[in-house]
């Protein structure tokens, strides 16, 4: 196969990684019944914080730890406000999304465009020599390999283990989970903060590995968090499908980069390209539930109706039943 195509596909795999961590992190939080809407701001703040931490300690690892801690701290505010205080999850998330972004641009100003350290590529010996697959999947930095493990771990944990079952329980039927002895509020705290830490990791993944450096507003990270939130919905709260959504997004971004070098479309247009698609996919996965669709379907002749409703049902995703609903031990 042509080298250019392989490089492009490898780029897709790489670009998907931060979004993948953020979206699966949010997936875990939402499975527990809490929406953390602050993702967009968290990623930007963690990208800045991780970059600065790595730069000043000369340690990539500390950069990643800093990113995760920032994400966890922001998520802890969301958890306290939604679980303990029962304030609107949308409100607190939205405020934090804006606040963290401005905080990053304000505090990060002195570090703009400073040369820093970054994660280098580590081809996996043996695997990288496999034709086609090798250069696409196994010629990356460590975060990319971590993402493969992460997708599988998240999926197995969520659907195949006891704690994962409990996680689903507190998001679907918290009262029932409570009756079975689960500490619903405690677990919700735990998973919100865990999910937040994973979202936070996405920041240094950008600034230390995928889009190296910190360039303030020009880092081009604004908006990615909202996409990650949409991917969680698109993926129907299933880590495997969420990962698929993230790769789709990575593909779009890579396509943008390719187009930018071959045509003279302004970069801002290419950066915004995923958003109409996001609206469209959300429409696709949600429209099956709308009342008028059901009415129209009922009026249709037998055959097309069956096919159509099958397609709609296959596309449809449902959120955890108690997503956004506060829980009180009674």
């Amino acid at each position, binding site marked *: 196969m042509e080298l250019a195509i392989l490089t492009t596909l490898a780029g897709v795999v790489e670009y998907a990684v931060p979004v993948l961590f953020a979206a699966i992190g949010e997936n875990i939080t939402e499975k527990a019944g809490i929406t953390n*809407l602050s993702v967009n701001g968290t990623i930007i703040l963690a990208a800045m914080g991780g970059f600065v931490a790595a730069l000043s300690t000369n340690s990539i690892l500390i950069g990643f730890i800093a990113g995760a801690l920032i994400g966890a701290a922001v998520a802890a*505010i969301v958890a*306290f*406000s939604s679980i*303990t*205080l*029962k*304030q*609107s999850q*949308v*409100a*607190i998330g*939205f*405020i*934090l999304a*804006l*606040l963290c*972004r*401005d*905080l990053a*641009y*304000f*505090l990060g*100003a*002195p570090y703009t465009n400073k040369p820093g350290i970054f994660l280098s590529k580590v081809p996996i010996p043996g695997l990288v020599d496999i034709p086609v697959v090798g250069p696409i999947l196994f010629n990356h930095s460590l975060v990319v390999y971590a993402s493969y493990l992460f997708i599988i771990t998240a999926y197995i944990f969520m659907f195949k283990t006891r704690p994962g079952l409990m996680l689903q329980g507190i998001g679907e039927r918290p009262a029932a989970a409570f009756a079975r002895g689960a500490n619903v509020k405690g677990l919700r705290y735990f998973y919100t903060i865990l999910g937040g830490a994973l979202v936070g990791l996405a920041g240094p993944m950008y600034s230390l590995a995928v889009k190296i450096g910190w360039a303030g507003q020009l880092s081009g990270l604004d*908006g990615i968090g*909202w996409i990650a*939130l*949409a991917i969680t*919905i698109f993926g129907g709260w299933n880590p495997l499908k969420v990962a698929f959504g993230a790769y789709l997004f990575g593909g779009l971004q890579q396509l943008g980069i390719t187009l930018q070098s071959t045509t003279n479309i*302004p970069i*801002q*247009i290419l950066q*915004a*390209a995923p*958003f*109409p698609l*996001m*609206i469209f996919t*959300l*429409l696709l996965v*949600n*429209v*099956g*539930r*709308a009342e*008028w669709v059901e009415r129209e379907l009922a009026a249709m002749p037998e055959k097309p109706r069956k096919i159509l409703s099958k397609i709609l049902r296959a596309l449809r995703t449902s959120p955890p039943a108690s997503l956004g609903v506060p829980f009180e031990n009674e």
Partner: protein
Amino acid sequence: MSVKPQKPPSPGFLKRNTWIDFGIRLSAVVLALLFTSIILSLAKAQPLVAFGSIIKGAFGSTIKFTSVVASWVPLVIATSGLLFTFTAGLWNIGMEGQIITGAIFTVGAFRFLDGTTLDPTIVILLAFIAGAVGGVCWALFPGLMKIYGGVNEIFGGLGLNFVAKTIAIWLIFGPWKRPGVASGSGTEWIDVKFRLPYLEGTNLSLTILIIAICIVLFTAIMLKGTHFGLRLKAIGKNDKAAYLLGIPTTRYFLFAFGLCGLFAGIAGAILVTSKQYSLIPDAGFGYGFLGLLVAMLVNYHAIWAPIVAIFFAALSIGNTELQYIGLNSYFAGVLQGFLVLFVVLVDGIRKRLLRQR
């Protein structure tokens, strides 16, 4: 079994005593100032010097203060629109995009009517109408997608914000580019006769001030003094119950979105005719997002909107002074963000204390 009427919650001194209530709210402001001071120290700036220069930047001269009022106008208009959607229980996060669409339509109208023999006043009026139409259309999108497509209005609105911005960029670099070379700094300026004149020695146009005052009054009356406002509130509290009680919820949802978009469009037209005089990529200047923060802060009380908005506008304008002490202009966002954050948190703590009594 007879259903016992629930005992009304005992008022308690926390609820009755407005001074303690006020004190609790004040503590939110103190906390916000404390945290921003910490942030300023992290940025190696002296908090008092920074706050001082913000005050100087906002109130230091007539020009500066009238700039604050000129910035208050689009902010309070955006907030007013958002109060309608908030009351209906909707999150119109697409406000920013609606302001941008308003600006696009306004500039479009001026371009279309360029060289006409019509009186400039009429042209300006038509451009405002065009802007309003643009805002309404862009606001109905998330509304229709929510009602007929089941798409949460937060994501619909957010996506449309980016789409609106992209359309603006496309116009600036493409069909509406300046003669010669296209530039990110915007389209060509509108003719001088289409610009709203400033009052002598100020940065403020009287027209936009009057528009803003009218919109603020309209909003307060509609929400507090009419059946419409009451029904909208009922929908916001529980839309299914409201529907069963005979309120056409779909129509009210769309109306709230439409009204919000109308105000957004007007705000966009104001920004074009009295501030920017052209279409720029960031044609909304963040007023949509800032309006959301103000609307959250006033928490459905339309009467407080103008006061909080003037404070936020003063921060945004005074903030530009910070460049002289080596800080960038994202500081206003930080302070505003902390303020709303702590108000929400402190309000939650107050409610929790009340529940436990």
